[in-house]
Structure formats: C-alpha cells, structure tokens
C-alpha cells in the first residue's frame, strides 16, 4: 500500500508542478469552469427557460456541441488506423495522445448531454438494470452504451500503457492490441449511432437522410485530427517527446482526403435539395439563404463553407500542407468550419421550420454559452492534466516508486 500512496504523490507532484505559462493556463481554465458552474446552478434553479430553446427548437447549443465533440472523440482514434494497420511507425508513437484526447472529448460529450437534461436528478431512470432503459428501441439508449463503452475502452488502453511505462515495464501487446482493434470499429460506432439519433426521425426531413452518417464520419475525420495536429506541435514544444514531421504531414494528407469526401457528400446533399426543390428544401434554404427574412444562421454557415473549402485546398496541395504556417492555418479553419457546420448547422436547421411550419430563430443565451464554455474548459483541463502526467512517463522522466526503483521521487 505505501507504494500506491507514494506513487499517488508522484502523480500529484507531476501534474501540480509547472512553469508560469502552465499555471496561467490552469487559472484561465478554472475561471471558465467557475463561470460555467455558476451558470449551470442558475439553470438548475430556474429550469431550461434560461436557454433559448423552446418547444419549436427543443435542442440547441448543448446538443450541437455534443455532436461536434463525438466527432472529435471518434477521430482521435482514427490515428490508430494508419499506425496499426499499415505499421506506419512515426504515427504509432503518438497514438497514446489521441487516446487521451478521446477520453477528454467523450467526457465533454457526456457532460453536454447531462446539462441538456430537464431532470438530472432522475438520471438513474435511464440506466440499465436499475432503471428502465429503452434498449434496443431508443437510439438514445444505444448512444449511452456506445459512449460509455468508448470512454471505458480508451481509459483502459491509455491508463494500462501509462501504468506499465511508469513501472518501467513493457506493456503486453497481447492485451493492448485487441483493445485497440476494438476501439477502431467502436470509434466508428459512436459517430454512427449519434448520426442515427438524428437520422431515425422521420418527422425531421432535414435529418432523415441516409447521407448523414457518412457525412458525420467524414467531417469528424477532418476536425478531430486538426485538433490533434495542433496538440502534437504543443507537445513537441513543451516536452522532450519527438514527433516526426512525417507523422504530422501524413495525418494532414489523410485529412485532405476526409475533407474532400465531406465536401463531395455536402455537394450531393446540396444538389438533391436544390434541384428537386421540394418542401424539404426549406431547411437548407434557411441555412444558406434565410427563410422569410430569417437569416441568423446564414453568415455562419457561409463562413463555414468558405473555411472548409479553403482548408481543403491548403491540405491537398503538398506545398501548403508541408508548410507549418499554412498547415496550422488550415487546421484552425477546419476546426471552426466543422464546428459551425456540424454543431449549430446540423441541429438547428432540423427544427427550422418546425414540424408545423413555424420559424423560431434560435440563438444561444448567455447561460448556454457560459455552461458550454465551462464544459469545454473541464475537458481541456482533463486533457491538460492527462498530458502533464503522460508526457514525462512517455519520455522516461517520471517513474513510479517500486522495489527495483527505490529512488523515484
């Protein structure tokens, strides 16, 4: 037992010590979390009336963030595919950081669903065994299972690997590999099931399109790796971990294909709606042109489209892809572009016009923005702390106290 306690302090020391910038970053995150928690407490007291959601638009910014982050979580593991299936070594070494990202992103997803609930006190009703989970009929019950399963798988893989490394032992590939192999289809499943949540609703023609699931995956495989590329560059800067440029450029290349597919699928959808021009066109018209002078989403979605196309061009040309300035620019464009397109751009137009033809223009309130900010800050804090611990373990600077290694601090 003393080993465990000593090692606990080693971990604590590892994450609590850092330079000025590290503390500033943590302080910033804590302020954001404080703002979010305060806004959420108000929402608990007064109800979801503090949001801009109403009967016409019954899901809003929270579900938009949730949808985007499911993509990020799924895509983080996407890095595993080239690493293990093609034995591309430069990427193999950085898979762990993707898995930790998946853990943080899924945590944010779960939080976004929780704050969207009207009765958080009745959460247990939805759990299997103790509650009455409507499995397998309700798509939401599937989502609960796959998201929690995904969190568990990624936690197992990353913590097991870190535990072994911290003890200076080789991790057993026979244990890790099946889990990693499981995590790949599971990553696809979390995003597919989330798409099915929307797709399965015949009442909402905008979502009731089979292209939704493939488009979800394609756009996720743009935004998720874009975040990872930025993270890798930070990791490289603040630690002794070496991340090969080849790995970064390879991921950028894969992102170019994903964005190409995403734009193609978007084009197919756009053509279908505008060429056939049935009453179902209203939703897409609302997104890109406005409907009966209701245009609040239009500038955002046009911007998202412009960003996505620009990023695609920057990624597809080897010259701009392999230049860090243009590559990082493209990463930011993709993150913002997909965030708009798949967040607000997906959930809101499904409700506008609503099932009885009413147009209710939704824009998140301060409460919704602050709560969302808080959740994102929680996710970032979690990722920061995980990285702070994982990086020195990875490089061998941090080792646990064991019989063989009594000098560990």
């Amino acid at each position, binding site marked *: 037992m003393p080993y465990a306690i000593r090692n606990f302090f080693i971990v604590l020391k590892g994450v609590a010590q850092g330079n000025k910038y590290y503390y500033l970053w943590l302080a910033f995150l804590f302020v954001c979390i404080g703002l979010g928690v305060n806004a959420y407490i108000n929402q608990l007291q007064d109800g979801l009336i503090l949001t801009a959601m109403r009967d016409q638009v019954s899901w809003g910014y929270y579900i938009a963030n949730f949808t985007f982050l499911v993509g990020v979580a799924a895509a983080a593991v996407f890095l595993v595919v080239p690493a293990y299936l093609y034995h591309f070594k430069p990427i193999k070494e950085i898979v762990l950081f993707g898995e930790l990202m998946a853990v943080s992103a899924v945590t944010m997803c779960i939080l976004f669903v929780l704050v969207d609930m009207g009765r958080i006190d009745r959460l247990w009703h939805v759990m299997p065994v103790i509650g009455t989970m409507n499995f397998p009929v309700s798509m939401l019950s599937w989502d609960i299972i796959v998201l929690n399963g995904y969190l568990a798988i990624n936690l197992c893989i990353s913590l097991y690997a870190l535990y072994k490394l911290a003890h200076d032992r080789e991790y057993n590939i026979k244990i890790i590999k099946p889990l990693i192999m499981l995590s790949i289809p599971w990553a696809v499943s979390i995003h597919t099931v989330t798409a099915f949540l929307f797709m399965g609703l015949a009442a909402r023609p905008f979502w009731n399109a089979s292209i939704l699931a493939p488009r979800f995956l394609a756009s996720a495989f743009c935004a998720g790796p874009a975040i990872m590329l930025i993270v890798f560059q930070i990791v490289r800067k603040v630690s002794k971990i070496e991340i090969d440029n080849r790995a970064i450029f390879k991921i950028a290349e894969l992102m170019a294909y994903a964005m190409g597919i995403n734009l193609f699928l978007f084009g197919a959808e756009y053509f279908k709606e505008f060429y056939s021009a049935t009453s179902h066109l209203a939703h897409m018209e609302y997104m890109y042109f406005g409907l009966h002078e209701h245009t609040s989403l239009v500038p955002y979605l046009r911007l998202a489209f412009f960003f996505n196309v620009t990023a695609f061009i920057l990624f597809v040309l080897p010259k701009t892809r392999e230049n860090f300035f243009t590559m990082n620019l493209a990463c930011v464009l993709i993150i913002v572009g997909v965030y708009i397109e798949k967040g607000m751009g997906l959930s809101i137009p499904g409700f506008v016009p609503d*099932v*009885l033809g009413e147009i209710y223009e939704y824009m998140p309130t301060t409460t919704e923005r602050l709560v969302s900010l808080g959740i994102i800050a929680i996710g970032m804090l979690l990722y920061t702390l995980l990285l702070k611990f994982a990086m020195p373990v990875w490089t061998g600077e941090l080792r646990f106290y064991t019989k063989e290694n009594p000098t560990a601090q």
Partner: protein
Amino acid sequence: MKKTLSRRQVIKSAAAGAATLAIPIGSADASVWQSFFQKHFREMSKDEVGEVIQRLEQEYREKYGRDFSIRTDGPQPNTLFGYGLDLSRCIGCRRCVYACVRENNQSRSPQNHWIQVLRFKKGETWVQDLEGSEKYYNPEKVPEPGYFYMPVQCQQCENPPCVKACPTKATWKEPDGIVVVDYNWCIGCRFCMAACPYGARHFNWAAPQIPPEEINPDTHYLGNRPRYKGVVEKCTFCIQRTRGNPGRYTACVEICPVGARKFGNLLDPKSEIRYCIENKRVFRLKEDLKTNPKFYYFFAT
C-alpha cells in the same frame, strides 16, 4: 440577460444550488426520498401505486391549498379512442385551446398549449404546406373571410415515434390508444419532441405556474395532474374524463361552439366517430409517415 458576477453572487447561487440538490438527511420531509426512489408507473404494485397517489395528493394539497383526487383508472375493455375534426366547421376561435388549458392544468406562466390552431389562406395551399400557415393570427373577430383553420394536437398515433424515441420508457401507448407520459419518470431529454411530427409534445421549460383558484383538482395520474419543471407533457384525450364510466367527452369537444369536434370509440360500429370515418372523406395529417394517427380531419359537406 446580462449579469456581472460578484463573488458574493457566486457563493449565494452555489449555496442555493446546493440547497436544490441537497438530500434531506435526517429531515422529517421523507417525501423527497420517496419521490426520488419512486418506481416507473407500470412497474409499481397496486399498493405502491396507492402510496404514491397518497403522497402526491398530499404534495399537491400543500402546494395549491386544494383537495386533489388523482385517479389511476385503467383502460375500458374493447375501447380504442378516436377523434374527428370537421375543418369546414372550425371557426378558429381557440376556445378549445383555453378549455384544454383549464381542464388539464397547463402552465399559465410560461404558457403551455396542447392545441395549436393553424390558419390557412383559402385558395392558396392545402394543409400539407404547413409553412404557409399562421399560428399567431389575432383578428378582432373569427372566422375571418378568406381563411380556414386547422387545430392540431396529439394525433394519438397507433405507431407513435415519440414512444420509440424515449430512452426510459417514460411514455407509452395505452391499450385504449392513448399515448401517456409518466411525469415522475420522464428525464426531460426531449428526444420525443424531436421525434414527434405534429409538435404535440411540450416541455416545462420553467416550473409551471397555475393560480390555485384556477386549478382543476379532479385529475388522473397519467393525465391532467400538475406537472413539474423539466418534464414533457402532452394531450391525453382528457384521460381523466374519457376513462370514466360513463365516460365524458374531452374538454375541447365539449367547448367547441360549432360542433367541429367529434370523439368516440373506434371499435364501436355505432359511434359517431365511426359514422364520420365511414361517411365523410377523412384524411390524417402526414399520412406518408405511417404514424397511423387516430385523429381524423374531414369536411362535413
């Protein structure tokens, strides 16, 4: 909504929030625990239902200062309720909307309406083009020349998409065809609202408020008993009335000044609703979705 945050405010609201969540350990108010652990309505034994009803009647009495009766009558045998609405008669007066609000204890603030009346311009489009309708029409007098009206409420689908969506089985279709919600089991995820093609489900965005003198204390567990903040509610064909023996008409049928609303047992060949279906040209809303509503619109001429 713009608020600056002072430290005091943060602490104050944190304390208040903690109070809302607080578990009353050792408190005399055991009903908080009982309501927390209350089971799903359909999983309770007869005795458990009895206890819950007693507790709820007590809670409502404390809240509204009135004696409540909460019935739990089950469905009558050989009954499948159906509804008819004569579009040629409806004058768009919205009396049904407010009769429903009073009968079913809908929140007055924020307002919650289970019936939405849509106004269409005659000669322009048909009722499928819902986008061409107007919900917030507000003339001096109805009916207005050149318009017709279509009230929409829960269509009591035989194949209800909302029931499929619910992750907790908090909403289901009863044997007499009424889709009901257990307001003590709903977690407020609002997936059913996204799934409903008729905008029939409504959410309590804030704590519902009803002046005590306007409350209807004659209630059913699955129907018009007062609801809570953060749960979904909907039309139940006035289950507290229609399940009586003898059953009563729904409040909207009763109030309609022009007799546009019909209600009855679809399994009874001699019922008025069956007569309408067999002799009028009826249609149902969004039939292409195969939700199979038991709500029939028709023209009496």
